[in-house]
């Protein structure tokens, strides 16, 4: 037996390292039963071409448990989910985060070769969705969902999915507006050139033609492309506020009316090229800033975690009932790995519940008949029945969402730098405009209107309005490259003001992967036996142990028995193994830590125990060391077992809190904010959601962007958490760069104003100055952001 070779073997399906040699078929090795099953399905349906596009394209299927999609066949669910429904034709769109390569597209678009009822399936790679046309008479929707799951493409079902369509059209509208503005901009420039190079006086007819064409081309830009600026400015004025849109709207109106006047009275060619160019650049900035991560969702609440429907005993039979229709007193049936959706009482004899969702602690709790179970617990093992005693929305966990913080409108009262600047700017411009108008009224009243409009035209803060989108937009892209995905560009600005960072422990500073270490002596053969026994059990601790033993485990187990909540026993090679809790194995437990231990005895002789310890993420220690100027603290749902290790990790003045409930975490953040700290919360689970929402910047750590994350301002990849300090510093640099861009645009504005107040602003000057200022600000912002990011040398 060569263990080394075995550990280098890669699964033919998903490419993971193979730890056991149990799963083999036709010279191909698989890492787990799930992957082998997928291979078999593909093989039977002659779909092995799947493996020809990418090597090992599959998704590891070992963690895929039985998911029950029966509720998808309920008419009420279908009416919310299906895009089209008729007796023999239906269309559904599933979000499938696991889509990642060409093979995925190929397989998902060949579903009709596996299941006959599927008519056509089409993948949208960018959005990670698959749209399936099927015949409901020949295949049930639940069957399709089950098929996707069995292939490793677990669909994420969201009954609110139809809302996303709306967002998409918004994006498309912006591109449409840019296209029209760009089109008109190009053509108006073309028609304006002859004027700048000087047309002869005998070409008056041509000049008029060009001018009227320009007006025609400017109208759709002003009334369609720029419409958002007018509505935003109007709204701001009605609320007696001034934001950046107000001076822009004033400038656009001044440009247009002045151009109409100039052309109508044959004074000059007008400023229509400047007007349209301005709108085009502004819209480009808006588009650049609107960089979104279509496959990520930042607004999930608890309902995304809970099952949509639940098996309920009603009218003498088990039926799927939508969660919102669940009543206190209902008897519900929960299966392995399903989440208990409401506070309830256990009716079965025994159940194993994992509360990691609620508390962050990843150990199982054993519950006996009649005990109370909180919503959010996940059932491990055999199915069990429960009696609901509070509806979902009234449950302990979900009551968090009744907290004020979740009732607030999403738009915060946060004042953006750009709007503060715009307000001062607008008042200054209005003052200069009034002053120069007053001067010219006295000096030469015929020139008064000319100067007044010139001031308003040149003051139109295009460059100013572009600095923020391009600075923060570029930063957003840099962050995305290094695994920090922010909800929008405003978060970058808030990031720069952070003075306190609060961490969660499990899943945030530590990764989900556990270190398994054995205390005691074991021979190779004994390890082999343990690996076999633990591989046969579904308990999560067993899975971890069997994975940690890298041996080619194959052989027979006799008299295998699993005692739920206690351990496993069986005979391998004539030796009697008992693996499980101290009580089960017969050891005397010395409880020094809260870390779970698994004891082993062979032939009733104590051999020792496995201890499981979550490992810290790479680079966390160094990252915390580098955050010298920032107050750090930790709120953990876990017990204080890890306290010693964490105290060494954090600076001395850091506040470490353990055994914190969901509400405690929220209150901790509130407390810090009352001391006027700007708080960043870094967490991972549903149990952090209150704190994430309350904090100024809430970041969620995840190892797989495809899985659910609670509502947050940003999602950070687990590998990139060690860059957190650099991200905050980059946020500060971004704000500094923004201020420099403001200065540049002010310089351009002063130059332009000096032309305007003296009455020398010609269309040619405007046509040169305005695009030049915009382009130089955009170039400066983008280049310097990328430069400072490059200087940081971030790791990934």
């Amino acid at each position, binding site marked *: 037996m060569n263990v080394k070779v075995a550990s280098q073997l890669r699964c033919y399906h998903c490419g993971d390292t193979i730890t056991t040699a149990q799963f083999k078929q036709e010279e191909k090795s698989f890492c787990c039963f799930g992957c082998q099953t997928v291979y078999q399905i593909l093989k039977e349906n002659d779909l092995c*071409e799947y493996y020809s*596009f990418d090597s090992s394209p599959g998704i590891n299927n070992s963690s895929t448990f039985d998911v029950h999609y029966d509720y998808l066949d309920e008419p009420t669910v279908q009416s919310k989910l299906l*895009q*089209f429904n*008729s007796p*023999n*034709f239906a*269309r559904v769109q599933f979000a499938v985060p696991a889509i990642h390569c*060409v093979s995925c*597209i*190929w397989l998902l*678009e*060949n579903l009709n070769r596996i299941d006959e009822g599927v*008519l*056509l399936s089409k*993948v*949208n*790679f*960018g*959005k990670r969705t698959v749209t399936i046309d099927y*015949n409901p008479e020949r295949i049930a929707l639940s069957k399709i969902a089950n098929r996707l799951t069995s292939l490793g493409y677990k669909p994420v079902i969201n009954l609110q999915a139809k809302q996303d369509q709306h967002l*998409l059209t918004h994006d*498309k509208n912006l*591109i*449409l507006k840019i*296209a*029209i503005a760009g*089109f008109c901009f*190009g*053509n108006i420039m073309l*028609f304006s050139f002859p004027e700048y190079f000087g047309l002869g006086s005998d070409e008056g*007819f*041509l000049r008029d*033609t060009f001018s009227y*064409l320009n007006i025609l081309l400017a109208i759709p830009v002003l009334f369609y492309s720029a419409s958002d600026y007018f509505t935003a400015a109007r709204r701001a004025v009605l609320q007696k506020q001034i934001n950046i849109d107000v001076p822009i709207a004033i400038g656009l109106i001044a440009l247009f009316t002045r151009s109409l006047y100039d052309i109508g009275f044959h004074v000059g060619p007008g400023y229509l090229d400047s007007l349209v160019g301005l709108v085009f650049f502004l819209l480009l900035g808006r588009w650049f800033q609107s960089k979104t991560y279509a496959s990520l969702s930042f607004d999930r609440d608890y309902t995304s975690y809970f099952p949509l429907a639940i098996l309920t005993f009603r009218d003498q039979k088990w039926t799927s009932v939508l969660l919102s229709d669940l009543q206190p007193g209902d008897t519900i049936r929960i299966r392995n790995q399903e989440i208990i959706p409401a506070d309830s009482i256990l009716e079965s004899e025994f159940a194993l519940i994992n509360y990691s969702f609620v508390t962050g602690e990843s150990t199982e709790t054993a519950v006996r008949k009649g005990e109370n179970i909180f919503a959010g617990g996940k059932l491990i093992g055999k199915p069990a029945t429960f009696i609901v005693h509070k509806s979902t929305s009234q449950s302990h966990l979900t009551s968090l969402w009744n907290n004020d913080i979740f009732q607030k409108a999403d738009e915060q009262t946060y004042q953006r730098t750009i709007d503060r600047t715009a307000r001062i700017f607008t008042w200054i411009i209005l003052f200069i405009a009034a002053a120069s108008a007053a001067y010219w009224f006295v000096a030469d009243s015929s020139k008064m209107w000319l100067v007044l409009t010139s001031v308003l035209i040149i003051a139109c803060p295009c460059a100013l309005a572009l600095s923020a989108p391009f600075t923060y937009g570029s930063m957003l892209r840099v962050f995305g490259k290094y695994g920090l995905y922010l909800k929008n560009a405003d978060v970058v600005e808030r990031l720069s003001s952070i003075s306190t960072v609060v961490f969660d422990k499990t899943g945030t500073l530590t990764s989900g992967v556990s270190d398994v270490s054995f205390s005691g002596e074991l021979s190779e053969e004994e390890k082999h036996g343990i690996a076999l026994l633990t591989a046969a059990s579904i308990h999560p601790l067993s899975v971890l142990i069997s994975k940690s033993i890298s041996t080619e485990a194959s052989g027979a187990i006799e008299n295998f028995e699993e005692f739920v909540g206690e351990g496993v026993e069986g005979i391998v090679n004539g030796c009697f193994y008992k693996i499980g809790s101290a009580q089960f194995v017969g050891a005397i437990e010395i409880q020094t830590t809260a870390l779970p231990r698994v004891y082993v005895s062979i032939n009733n002789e104590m051999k020792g125990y496995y201890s499981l310890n979550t490992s810290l993420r790479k680079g966390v220690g160094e990252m915390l060391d580098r955050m010298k100027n920032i107050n750090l603290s930790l709120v953990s749902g876990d017990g204080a077992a890890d306290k010693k290790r964490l105290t060494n990790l954090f600076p001395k003045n850091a506040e470490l809190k353990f055994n914190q409930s969901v509400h405690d975490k929220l209150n901790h953040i509130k407390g810090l904010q009352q001391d006027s700290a700007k708080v960043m919360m870094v967490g991972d689970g549903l149990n952090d959601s209150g704190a994430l929402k309350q904090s100024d910047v809430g970041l969620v750590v995840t190892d797989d962007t495809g899985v659910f994350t609670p509502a947050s301002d940003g999602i950070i990849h687990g590998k990139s958490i060690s860059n957190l300090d650099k991200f905050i510093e980059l946020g500060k640099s971004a704000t500094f760069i923004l201020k420099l861009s403001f200065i540049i645009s002010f310089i351009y504005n002063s130059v332009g104003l000096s032309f305007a107040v003296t009455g020398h602003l010609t269309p040619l000057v405007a046509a040169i100055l305005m695009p030049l200022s915009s382009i130089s600000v955009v170039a400066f912002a983008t280049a310097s952001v990328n430069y400072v990011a490059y200087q940081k040398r971030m790791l990934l």
Partner: protein
Amino acid sequence: MNIIVALIAISLSLALFFLGLFIWSLKSGQFDDPFGPAARMLFDEKREIDQYKKNSLPSEMSRL
């Protein structure tokens, strides 16, 4: 002189035609998925979509 006016009319209508094409392609979803079609091109066998479209699409689907 007149020829310039004619040329302008032609060039503008040509440009408008292409703008119209772009708007059509945007609305019909050709920019929705920048990766998928490039990969799909590599798949070998026929998927008999045309057949499917002819036979089994109910008439109401044209509204979608």
